[in-house]
């Protein structure tokens, strides 16, 4: 029950800070852009947006969320509550994952996938991966500037290869699914042939990132004291 309550609390927090309004605004902007595009170009751009949107927004929002919590010393309150580090991380990735999923699917209605089921899994997985990266960086930093600098490598590593990949670069090289972003892209495309490998790669990455996030958040809980935004 506590797990559910932590997730609900996170969603309430995101709602109050207007995150959902921002998502809505983004959907509108994307729809306007998509309306100017047609054919293959449109499919490619929509796919890239579906990949990058939950990811980019998820990672950026994660930093904002943790910084806001730190500045209000919520992290101290959580640290002396029965909420475990795992539950804390789960609350963050599931709450952001749900909204990312919704936004991703709405955007995908404008594009094309071979398999909506795999696509949905891909969107959620992409959100979780980038959220975990966001938590790892967010747990360490004390200001928005530090966060932007800290997440820059993740942004570059996360987007550049995957965008090139989707455009066609190394698309036929099966080894590319080692990159979790490329695996996510395969799922978004609804590629049933490579789904098993892609899912395996994603699962391994999520386990690894969750483990690092766990260590980072544990440290953050120990380090008490306020932070200013």
């Amino acid at each position: 029950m506590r797990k559910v309550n932590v997730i609900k609390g996170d969603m309430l927090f995101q709602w109050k800070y207007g995150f959902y309004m921002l998502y809505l605004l983004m959907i509108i902007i994307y729809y306007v852009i998509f309306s100017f595009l047609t054919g293959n170009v449109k499919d490619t751009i929509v796919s890239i947006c579906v990949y990058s949107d939950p990811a980019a927004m998820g990672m950026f929002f994660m930093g904002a969320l943790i910084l806001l919590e730190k500045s209000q010393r919520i992290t101290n309150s959580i640290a002396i509550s029965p909420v475990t580090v795992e539950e804390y991380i789960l609350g963050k990735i599931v709450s952001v994952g749900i909204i990312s999923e919704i936004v991703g699917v709405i955007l995908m209605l404008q594009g094309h996938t071979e398999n909506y089921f795999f696509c949905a899994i891909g969107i959620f997985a992409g959100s979780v991966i980038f959220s975990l990266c966001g938590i790892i960086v967010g747990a360490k930093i004390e200001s928005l500037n530090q966060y932007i600098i800290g997440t820059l490598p993740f942004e570059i590593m996360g987007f550049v290869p995957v965008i090139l990949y989707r455009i066609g670069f190394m698309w036929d090289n099966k080894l590319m699914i080692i990159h979790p972003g490329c695996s996510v892209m395969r799922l978004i495309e609804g590629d049933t042939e490579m789904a098993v490998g892609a899912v395996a790669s994603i699962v391994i990455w999520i386990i690894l990132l969750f483990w690092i996030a766990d260590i980072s958040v544990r440290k953050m809980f120990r380090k008490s004291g306020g932070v200013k935004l």
Partner: protein
Amino acid sequence: MDKNIENVIEVKDLYFSYTKTPFLKGINFTVNKGEIFGFLGPSGAGKSTLQKVLTGLCTNYEGTARILGVDSNKHGKDFYEKIGVDFEFPSLFEKLTARENLDYFASLYSGETRDVDELLKEVGLYEHADKKVSDFSKGMKSRLNFIKSLVHNPEILFLDEPTSGLDPNNAKIMKDMIMKEREKGKTIIITTHNMQDATELCDRVVFIVDGQMKALDTPHNFIMKRGAAKVTYSYMENGKEQSSTSVLSELSNDMLLKELIAENRIIAIHSAEPTLSDIFMELTGAQLD
């Protein structure tokens, strides 16, 4: 956790440091069930640090720090079901209302929780229950922070300067609530530099200076053992007002006072019991506040 443990808190040869040099040095005390136990000391003495060790936030200490029989650095999940912590600074969701805050924190515990409305009423926040915390005054936030630590009805309460920033009326309400918790059998640790509060509330107090324990006793014993009532008087000398102090029990030896009385030159005379504050200074050489 064993229900029958009398020493609810047990601290033995405790050493802790944020850096290489030891900060908390050789802390020793036990707290009994149903006791209000005070940490007193000047700013930076290590009171909050000691509280963080006890509440499991600083885990790399040496020595023993046991809460309800559990080492505070090796506690499991249910450790926090039984303790409530009121930090020295508000730790609340600013954008949520008072009630949303309490409901959220209450939802994190598996045991029975207290009636949120009742708690809000007790500290006079019921009318403000649906206001955002960011619109609260400092004192309102302190009060909300305090009841937040009570919401899961914990066995042990850790209160870090609960009355700081409160007007006398609200400080009184909070002190009454703290006493009420003790009557229910709760054990309470209070950190403060307010000697008045400590004298009124605490069954025992420990003086902490520079991370070290300087003395431990009941406020009553401190005052009786150490203190001597004093008499202070002022008089005119060479057109200027002067004052002097004598111990009450040795007043007959004060030649100046005799002379002044004989010459009717006394302007004012006061007698005063020593306060815990005076005794603190006498024992530790350190000034509070």
